[in-house]
């Protein structure tokens, strides 16, 4: 091809490409299905959490707060390693409407209490004896952490660990902005 033919082709690609981009442009409102899922940007799946302290909490009860939902188990090394950082976050940010909830995976309340007492962690711990929360949140490995905003939307997820406190704070910061 001669040079002019290449130039014409280049112009056609640009014009045709922008035309295709216009024809397939995102339609407002069509991009974000409102069904609950673990996708970032979607409403967090609703779950009822039987707490270690005895009461039952639902995510709907926590609407208006920033929720850090941390799936963990006492036998999981990275989970244990990030517990102190999560406890510090709970202490420091509780006054700004942040709540950390550790959802334990299928362990008995006695052994969880013994472990928590041994490390002096006191943020709310939920039980998941049937693995229902695990299934709803597609927890395929531990630890898994979801950050849920004040409107109940999943805004970030961290798979694996241990999370450093700085990492949690970096993920939390955008959710605390007014």
């Amino acid at each position: 091809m001669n040079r002019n033919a290449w130039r014409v082709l280049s112009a056609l690609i640009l014009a045709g490409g922008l035309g295709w981009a216009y024809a397939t442009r995102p339609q407002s409102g069509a991009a974000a299905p409102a069904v609950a899922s673990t996708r970032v940007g979607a409403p967090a799946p609703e779950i009822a959490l039987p707490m270690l302290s005895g009461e039952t909490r639902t995510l709907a009860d926590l609407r208006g707060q920033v929720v850090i939902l941390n799936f963990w188990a006492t036998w999981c090394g990275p989970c244990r390693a990030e517990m102190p950082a999560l406890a510090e976050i709970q202490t420091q940010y509780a006054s700004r409407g942040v709540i950390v909830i550790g959802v334990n995976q299928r362990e008995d309340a006695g052994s969880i209490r013994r472990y928590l007492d041994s490390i002096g962690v006191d943020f709310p711990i939920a039980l998941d004896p049937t693995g229902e929360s695990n299934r709803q949140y597609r927890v395929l490995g531990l630890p898994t952490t979801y950050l849920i905003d004040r409107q109940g939307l999943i805004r970030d997820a961290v798979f694996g660990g241990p999370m450093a406190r700085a990492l949690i704070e970096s993920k939390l910061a955008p959710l605390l902005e007014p």
Partner: protein
Amino acid sequence: MQPFIQIFGLAISAAPAAVWLGAVVAIWLAGRTAAWRGLDGRVLGDALTVAGFGALLGARLGYVALHASVYVRDPLAALALSTSALDGAIGALAGVGVLAWRLRRAGMLRWAAADALAPPALVLAMGLALASYFDGAVFGAVAEVPWAVAVWGAARHPVQFYEMAGLLIILAAAVVLRKRALPDGALALGAVLAYGLLRLIVDGFRADEAALLAGLRASQIVAAISAALAAWGLGAADHR
């Protein structure tokens, strides 16, 4: 979506593993494609390896810099083994910069090297597409085609698999064309042109909340401009 594996207590999610796999195969391939243009495969492979580490370091430093207010209180957290504290865009820029620096040092910063790097770049793009599928952030529009995949509660266009299939075709074309007496840069520019067109088409089937520019997907605008510039460059290369 989002499966991850634990190795010796270190949690590795599937998405970063796919990028790593793509990078390893790309580096291996660079050692072989260098011969297509009479270059030293070991030097090119080494340059790509260093660029990979540069990208990783850049991604971490970029993330730390963007969140400096929290990392300044705990600087050692910047060394944490976590793939969650990486900034992909800054990492990519750092990787390209380090690659250019290494090639320049080796006297290989020329179009022939770009040709040799085109197939490895296509393989890396496959790894990124696979990572994007695992990550689940990018997903296709709802579809009733037989090959639709279940993503986020609906049958959708498997956009990442469209992209990977397209990349395989481009790679095969590059392998076929390698023995032709093409001008330096033609293979690289051809790959950019083909990949630009591929992304332009495939991104039209996406349904996720992408970055927009004047109401259009920014990725499609970049793809159209890249493809057009590559076509322009091919014309120039043809008449050098």
